[in-house]
């Protein structure tokens, strides 16, 4: 047996390895971190120190790891909110607004509907959050199909409306009368709070993204409907000729996606914040959007990209806290990672 391989064979192996999307993505992420290291050096800091602090703060302790998990819960949901509509060719940039409306609806139920038992309260809050997000996203579909408005424009602008919509309530009718004038609602009661897991900030909301990922993966890869969604996203006219009810798929994909973003809002209020306040989402929807595009909308890959983004965000908080770097700098790093991943992706066809 000849054990050694020729140079040509080696190049072939390296080439086919480089053709694998995951290898390209990892190289792209490394590249982005290198570019950001140059940026850190340019502002007069030590990149090695910054990166080691980030790793230590995220993966170096039980607290760090659980915090990454805490961030991943809403990120995975908002990433699915972008990826499910993307399957049928829709671009949902409205995750941010849908999170706000979901959080608002869930808080409304928690504060103003007397349900009593936690076993009923939490599911009802989740349903309210889902429906709230879905309605908000549904407006974009209505405008798209019946008023010819591209969903990108309607979802982008409606984000700003949603933020203000929540403000109307937390500065107004829902403001906690005993809250020293802060624009917060009253704190949620025991039965409307997602229980914490093992003395960390991790909470039972964790089941939402887990179910979401598994269900989405199975649905997309194992059912006829999943295949149909891909057909609608690829070529709607051809799909229609094959008898697929295109409009129904578009409506459902958007409603489910937007509903999941609404669930992220519910889980933030019920699991972490325990009251509604302005800025409750703080880029959750946007981060999910980036995670979904980074993962090419693949539900399994989304776990990886959400982990990466969550780790960067938590690492950024550690740096901010220790005075090394303001957390705003992490948006720069996340942007670099996405550009790099998109840019490293193999060209399907040569442009022109």
């Amino acid at each position, binding site marked *: 047996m000849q054990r050694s391989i020729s140079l040509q064979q080696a190049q072939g192996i390296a080439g086919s390895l480089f053709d694998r999307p995951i290898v390209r993505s990892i190289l792209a992420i490394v590249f982005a971190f290198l570019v950001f290291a140059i940026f850190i050096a340019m502002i007069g800091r030590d990149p090695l120190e910054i990166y080691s602090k980030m790793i230590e703060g995220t993966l170096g302790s039980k607290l760090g790891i659980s915090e990454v998990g805490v961030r991943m819960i809403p990120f995975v949901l908002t990433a699915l909110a972008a990826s499910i509509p993307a399957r049928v060719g829709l671009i949902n940039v409205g995750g941010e607004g849908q999170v706000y409306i979901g959080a608002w609806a869930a808080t409304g139920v928690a504060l103003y509907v007397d349900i009593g038992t936690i076993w009923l309260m939490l599911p009802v809050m989740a349903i309210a959050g889902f429906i709230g997000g879905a309605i908000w996203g549904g407006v974009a579909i209505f405008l798209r199909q019946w008023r010819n408005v591209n969903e990108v424009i309607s979802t982008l602008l409606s984000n700003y409306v949603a933020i*203000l919509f929540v403000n109307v309530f937390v500065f107004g009718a829902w403001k906690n009368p005993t809250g020293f004038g802060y624009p917060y609602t009253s704190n949620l009661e025991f039965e409307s709070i997602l229980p914490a897991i093992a003395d960390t900030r991790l909470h039972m909301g964790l089941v939402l993204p887990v179910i979401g990922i598994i269900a989405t993966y199975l649905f997309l890869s194992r059912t006829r409907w999943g295949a149909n969604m891909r057909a609608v996203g690829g070529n709607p006219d051809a799909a229609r000729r094959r008898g697929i009810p295109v409009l129904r798929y578009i409506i459902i994909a958007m409603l489910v996606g937007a509903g999941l973003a609404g669930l992220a809002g519910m889980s933030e209020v019920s699991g972490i914040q325990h009251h509604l306040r302005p800025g409750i989402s703080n880029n959750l929807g946007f981060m999910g959007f980036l995670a979904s595009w980074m993962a090419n909308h693949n539900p399994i890959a989304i776990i990886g990209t959400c982990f990466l983004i969550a780790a960067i965000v938590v690492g950024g908080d550690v740096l901010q806290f220790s005075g090394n770097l303001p957390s705003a700098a992490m*948006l720069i790093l996340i942007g670099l990672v996405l550009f790099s991943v*998109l840019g490293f*992706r193999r060209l399907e066809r040569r442009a022109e």
Partner: protein
Amino acid sequence: MSDIWLVLNGTLTGVVGPGISVLYATYGELITERAGRINLGTEGSMLMGACFGFIITAETSSATLGVMASMIVGSGLSLVLAYLVIYRDTNQLATGFALTLFGAGITAYAGRGYVDSTIGGLNPISIPLLSEIPKLGQALFEQDILAYIAYALGPLLFLGLHYTRTGLSLKAVGESIDVAFAAGRNPRVIQIAAIAAGGALAGLGGAQLSLGLTHTWSEGMTVGRGFVAVGLVIFAMWSPLRAMVGALLFGGAIGLQLQLQTVGAPVSPFILDMLPYLIILFVVALWSRASARAMPEGLKGVLKATT
């Protein structure tokens, strides 16, 4: 009754100022889209322009340098999009949107030390005689220099698009890259130039916001004006002259909202803050069918609605 009159009167004089920054961004997006590309990074370019225009003006005490810097950074950010969408064939909308978040990160970082400070920046210049026209004079001719340039830019862009070789090349590329290429034009160079020019104008709009309108910098201060511009281009049906009408509409919405707040309308100020976005969404919805017919051929793949 007198309240209503007060509101209308105040809205009229305040209708132009808040619209100028959006008008620049709309011009920029319009040029980009005429070349067949869409740039959602316009919002990011505006933020970059607002932030670095402010920083450079504060550090050098020269608003001219600040304005120039705003165009450079706005354009620089948009070139990232140009590279990725033209050479790497990435999705335009996702790339542009990521660019906006990237710009938000850079400006939040770079502008930290400048929040809450005020500078002279650009001050209103009264045009003799014209500014004395009752009502209208005050509204139109007591503005900063960038506003007057914006007035002139609309008709100039209109003429440039329809009657110059450059403008015709731009439109040809936006209609069909293949046909333009066959006709001996270089579509890539033209698209890159259009995206760069669009980013520069968006940056300029940002500078007008921080240096001319508010004289301050705050994180995320554009609050969606760049996205409003993307909507207004559709309302404007890719015509610079109609873009001016669109900017007036946005300025009017902001002016109305501010006036209603001043007279103490019995509505939550946050509902009033929604007005500009809702009005823009409304007019886009109203004109979108007519607009779809005017859309450059090259945009139809990305900006489609109704499947």
